[in-house]
């Protein structure tokens, strides 16, 4: 217990002087240690330790795009980006359900009913997957 307090005081003192150190420090604790309000650019490139709500890992996005393309039988030339909506790609609600099921199987997660209703774009799906994978891990 005492060592924890010591460690936390050490963290709070060490992250004040330099900005370069604080990015590593903040990965141990949550956002309470971020002194500047802005997002550290190194956070999004970290291999998924700290959950940043706006970014999803590129491999996840790629896998999601592949599954969407396969499910909707789109030709490879179609550009499926993070912001593309399923309805724009020609999917109806049944297709969306199938895509979500395919993603569940691929990533080994289980999507809740109401979360599944809110998925509209590829980015939504990737973010939800990240959140569930992290919760499972």
């Amino acid at each position, binding site marked *: 217990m005492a060592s924890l307090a010591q460690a936390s005081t050490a963290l709070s003192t060490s992250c004040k002087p330099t900005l370069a150190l604080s990015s590593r420090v903040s990965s141990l604790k949550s956002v309470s240690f971020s002194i500047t309000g802005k997002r550290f650019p190194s956070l999004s490139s970290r291999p998924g330790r700290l959950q940043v709500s706006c970014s999803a890992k590129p491999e996840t996005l790629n896998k999601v795009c592949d599954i969407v393309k396969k499910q909707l039988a789109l030709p490879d030339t179609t550009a499926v980006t993070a912001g593309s909506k399923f309805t724009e790609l020609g999917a109806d*609600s*049944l297709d969306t*359900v*199938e895509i*979500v*099921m395919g993603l569940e199987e691929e990533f080994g997660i289980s999507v809740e*009913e109401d979360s599944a209703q809110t998925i509209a774009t590829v980015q939504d799906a990737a973010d939800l997957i990240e959140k569930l994978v992290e919760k499972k891990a």
Partner: protein
Amino acid sequence: MSVVAASAPSRAEVLQLYRSFLRVARKFTDYNIREYTKRRATDAFRQNRNVSDPCAAFADGKAQLEVASRQAVVYSLYAPKLKSVMEVHN
């Protein structure tokens, strides 16, 4: 046997039923039955998408879902060890 008059199913309920079918399909160990369940559910839902009175189709769907979930349990009791050739990935 009196049929309970159900109000028209909402869009969310229909999608939930579809999702339940796909979930039940995953429980089958037999590749053929699994694929058939998914295919039949997709076909049936697509066929009935524009029907004017969805109550009967929805009730039918729920009955079939019960059948499928019962059969999933029964099939799992006698699952063969040999998998179908379609499931061999190399």
